């Protein structure tokens, strides 16, 4: 251990818990679904059915449309954040992040209050609303480091501003835009809560159909076949995304400060569009708050008061406040678990890269840890239902299943936020500490942890809101008496009664307030970026 392969054994030991978790709570359930899908005669029948392909068509179509909207809306905001030094950019950064971390049910409900008819337009807009942040922030991250002098050179050579953007800037940004778009497409294609709330009975995607077949039609082989189809599609998109990401490193990078300045001339028009986008992003949020306060008898707090009860004619088995308590408890457990697993995984990946281990091994592990981000939460939740019987302790009916599933979703986010920071620490800094007498453990304590501390805190906060709002897997796994707030909201809007609606809007507003508070905290920590998607 003295040298040569410092900590190879340690790195592999650190990788064991997250890998074990991944195998038991992800690979096994997903493999079981694939097996179930392949074994029955479901696959053939499902694949041959015209309904299936209609479903696939709608899933892909709405996701593509939402991605296009998100990219078009996100680029001006990316310009504003990356290239201008205007007052208020900090607020803009935070404001676009809020929709991204809002629970899906909250977004679904916000758009329902705006467009009560629901339908395709509402679904596309809601999915785009979520993901403007992904485009704006990840493209801005690259844009702010792109050397501005190439653009200056093009201008000096006689290119107009637009021409310069199209022929110089855009080609440099294309990999970042492509990568962001593939992630957005993935999020939209597997979006569950939004489609469930806005599609009514009329529109459904693969994701919602899997849920309906499992929960309402009890058609497990059919659901498994659809899951199989979805896993295959997701894998394809992930590979495309990985390929575009690999090409991204080529752009010449500079510090941020040199590239941001006051906008000039036509740039103000772009800035105006960016402000309009941000204003539009705030509309559904405002509509939700307004709706939660308006009752049949004018303004009032009826919805909030109703949270103490179980809804109109006892629609629920828990009160709103009990559900909120369930949410907080599950999200806390999930976040703690995800932090432990995510830190271990990041440490393992960083330490492995430092040894003479083959780079392929590091890449493969990295991709494996990211898999849960790609596969839909509904598929995972469904997988738990058909596998976890085999584990001791009757896990399937236990309340611990919810935090476990949430941790699975949150862990990749923690890794994505922590890993770039740990990787950016020059290895010679650690070596300097070692030659000054710091043991390997002490090096982590003195160098890595202080330098990555803010990112760890931000990852915890970010993971917490994601766990708090997790809907897809939780709605499969939560029992009626352990329902979380998003599940309760989903249940309330599916039942009749104005009180239920009121209560749902009030619950959404509460969830949103928690989310905004956490986003404000993340922004205060001034972490460079929320992950490298």
């Amino acid at each position, binding site marked *: *251990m003295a040298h040569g392969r410092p900590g190879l054994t340690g790195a592999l030991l650190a990788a064991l818990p997250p890998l074990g978790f991944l195998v038991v709570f992800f690979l096994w359930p997903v493999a079981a679904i694939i097996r179930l899908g392949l074994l029955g005669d479901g696959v053939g029948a499902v694949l041959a059915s015209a309904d299936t392909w209609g479903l696939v068509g709608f899933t892909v179509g709405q996701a593509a449309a939402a991605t296009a909207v998100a990219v078009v809306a996100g680029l001006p905001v990316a310009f504003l954040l990356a290239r201008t030094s205007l007052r208020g950019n900090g607020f803009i950064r935070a404001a676009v992040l809020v929709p991204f971390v809002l629970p899906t049910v909250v977004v679904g409900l916000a758009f329902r209050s705006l467009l009560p008819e629901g339908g395709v337009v509402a679904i596309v807009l809601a999915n785009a609303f979520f993901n403007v942040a992904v485009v704006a922030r990840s493209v801005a991250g690259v844009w702010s480091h792109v050397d501005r002098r190439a653009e200056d050179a093009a201008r000096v050579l006689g290119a107009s501003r637009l021409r310069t953007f199209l022929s110089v800037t855009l080609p440099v940004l294309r990999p970042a835009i492509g990568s962001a778009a593939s992630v957005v497409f993935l999020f939209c294609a597997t979006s569950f809560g939004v489609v469930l709330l806005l599609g009514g009975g009329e529109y459904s995607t693969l994701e919602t159909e899997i849920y309906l077949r499992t929960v309402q039609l009890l058609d497990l082989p059919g659901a498994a076949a659809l899951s199989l189809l979805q896993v295959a599609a997701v894998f394809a998109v992930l590979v495309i995304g990985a390929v575009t990401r690999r090409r991204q490193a080529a752009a010449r990078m500079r510090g941020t400060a040199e590239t941001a300045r006051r906008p000039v001339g036509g740039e103000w028009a772009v800035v105006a569009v960016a402000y309009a986008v941000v204003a539009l992003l705030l509309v559904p949020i405002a509509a939700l708050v307004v709706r939660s306060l308006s009752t049949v008898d004018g303004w009032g707090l009826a919805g909030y008061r109703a949270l103490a009860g179980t809804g109109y004619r006892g629609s629920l088995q828990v009160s709103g406040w009990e559900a909120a308590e369930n949410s907080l408890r599950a999200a806390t457990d999930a976040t703690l678990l995800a932090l432990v697993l995510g830190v271990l995984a990041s440490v393992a990946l960083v330490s492995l890269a430092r040894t003479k281990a083959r780079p392929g091994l590091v890449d493969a592990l990295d991709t494996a840890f990211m898999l849960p981000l790609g596969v839909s939460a509904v598929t995972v939740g469904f997988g738990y239902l058909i596998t976890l019987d085999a584990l001791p302790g009757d896990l399937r009916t236990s309340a611990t299943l919810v935090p476990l599933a949430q941790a699975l979703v949150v862990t990749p986010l923690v890794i994505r936020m922590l890993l770039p920071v740990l990787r950016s620490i020059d290895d010679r800094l650690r070596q300097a500490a070692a030659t*000054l*007498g710091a043991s390997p453990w002490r090096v982590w304590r003195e*160098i890595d942890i202080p330098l990555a501390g803010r990112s760890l805190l931000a990852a915890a906060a970010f993971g917490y809101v994601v766990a708090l709002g997790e809907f897809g897997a939780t709605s499969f796994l939560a029992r009626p008496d352990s329902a979380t707030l998003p599940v309760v909201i989903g249940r309330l809007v599916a039942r009749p009664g104005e009180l239920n609606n009121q209560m749902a809007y009030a619950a959404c507003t509460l969830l949103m307030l928690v989310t905004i508070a956490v986003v404000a905290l993340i922004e205060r920590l001034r972490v460079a970026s929320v992950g490298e998607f």
Partner: protein
Amino acid sequence: MLAVDGLTVRYRGVTAVSDVDIQVADGEVVALLGPSGCGKSTLLRAVAGLERPDAGTVSWDGRDLGDVPVHKRGFGLVFQDGQLFPHRDVRGNVAFGLRMAGKPLDRVDELLSLVGLAGYGARRVTELSGGEQQRVALARALAPNPRLLLLDEPLSALDRALREQLAVDLSRVLRASGATALVVTHDHDEAFTLADRVAIMSAGRIVQVGRPEEVWRRPVDAETAHFLGASLVVPAAVADGVVTTEFGVAALPWAPEGDVVLALRPTALVVGEGPVRGTVVARVHRRDHVRLSVEVDSRTVDAVSGVGDAPVVGAGVSLRLDPAGIAVVGPTP
């Protein structure tokens, strides 16, 4: 004392360090001098314990360090670009090694004055200039009283004026602290300023070890002579301390008698009264002299002249031999 015996380090099939032997006595400063890529930094890292040798040993006072991890070797290391801890101030950086060793921190101010940074303790390291950062890095490495100080191109990242100033300071600090040190550098001025002995490395091997003036005057082969700036190789004969060449005669009392091979630095040929005539084909002004390319009998040689009376391109000049620029190539007996 440090002893490296038969050390070999390979990187993915490429041999970076090949069968190297070298010793550093207590209180001695040894420079590893060689072109970039010759394996000198790898050798230094192997001594620090940051690379695993494929063969050979690193030992201290006769004890093999093969099983001693980096943090227990008690060796200090200064990187080319400081590698100060960005989350600690100057004091926190210098105190780091003392904290690791559980020693009192009262030496910190003393060390900061030693490197000429008294009163800098509370500064953020990101606010320091490159030269100041290197001084802090040196103080940090010296603080825990390492038994051996390893310096990896300590001055290379600095601009030239600063580099020369800091080389003198570094030499003073090393002497004042009585440090035993191994310095890696590709700059022979730096090596000769700092070191008691210089080891020339080439393609993973140490080709020559000796006192600076010895290495300067008697490079072991033409390649080493070339690396040390003497590119023109000419045959010569030495008799009674006087060397006779095609460019004339010069007094070399230290040269071995008989037939020898000389390597000439540009400064060995000076415009003045001499037997060789040629035509100036190019000239470049340096700080305190002018470098000339002179065509002599259809070959071009480097020469120098004073700044005031530098001949123009195309002028005919005669050259004389200056003994200060002459090296005798070949192994010393």
